[in-house]
């Protein structure tokens, strides 16, 4: 998050994630066809889920939860403290960089096959790792 923005609470992170997911659903239902930006919105939903996870798990580690101010800080935190999450998150973070800053030639990967894999495997794998324990219990049924 930018330095001058007040840090979000866990609940606010969840709300932002849900709002971004809602936008993805609206994009899917529309004729708007900018897949790289569809991915960016979905990635930012994931990012807020990850931030919520970091805040939740943060009490047990050394970091100040209010000081997560950039992608680099978040990535570093994941790499050091949650390497299993980082392994799954990193490729999608890199994709978000390509989607945001890459040339039109570089965004060809954001096709139907990509989104199917994203929704069916990649995102659920990460969400399984960061979901609150209570939700893990609930999802078993």
């Amino acid at each position, binding site marked *: 998050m930018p330095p001058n923005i007040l840090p979000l609470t866990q609940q606010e992170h969840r709300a932002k994630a849900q709002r971004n997911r809602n936008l993805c659903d609206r994009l899917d239902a529309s004729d708007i066809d900018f897949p790289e930006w569809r991915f960016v919105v979905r990635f930012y939903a994931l990012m807020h889920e990850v931030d919520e996870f970091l805040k939740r798990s943060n009490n047990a580690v050394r970091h100040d939860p209010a000081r997560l101010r950039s992608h680099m800080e978040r990535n570093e935190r994941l790499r050091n403290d949650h390497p299993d999450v980082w392994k799954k998150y990193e*490729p999608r973070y*890199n994709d978000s960089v390509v989607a945001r800053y890459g*040339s039109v030639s570089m965004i060809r990967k954001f096709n139907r096959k990509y989104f199917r894999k994203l929704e069916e495997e990649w995102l659920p794998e990460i969400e399984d790792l960061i979901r609150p324990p209570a939700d893990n219990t609930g999802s078993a049924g």
Partner: protein
Amino acid sequence: MNPASNPSSDPTVYLKKAVPVDRAAAVSISNAAAGATIAVGSAFPYADVLGDVWQRVEQVVRHSVPLGENMSETALLHKEHLEQAFARELRDHPGIVSLLSIDSDDDSLLFIVLVEEYDPDAEDRFWDFVHAFREDYSVPVSAYYLEWEEGLPEHFSGPRRLLI
């Protein structure tokens, strides 16, 4: 002796020395490996001695930091050999048409992999490879896996090398 200026066509003579890991030896290794690197550009049988070079350079980098004025050269050498190792191991990866290495400011490696037709399962396998490479070689690697339609990405900015 400066191996970099040695006209020998067989730089392996420098690589076959038994080298204990200490500061003085590390400098020696650095110079020896530098000799090998010079020779690489002139039909040197690179693959045959890459493992040997790598092991010794790795010793230098892992156990002899800081090396003062030699560190910069060693770090660069370390990076170059890692790039070659990465490219060699990736050469048979299905679908990869190009592997670019982009110069970074530190000792980390930054690769852009270009494939003819994007396959998310192949990307999974690629990332498995990247994670394993990081662990095997103890080196930071950043990677991008992209579909690329035609030609080489000449417009990519920054110093770069085409490894495959």
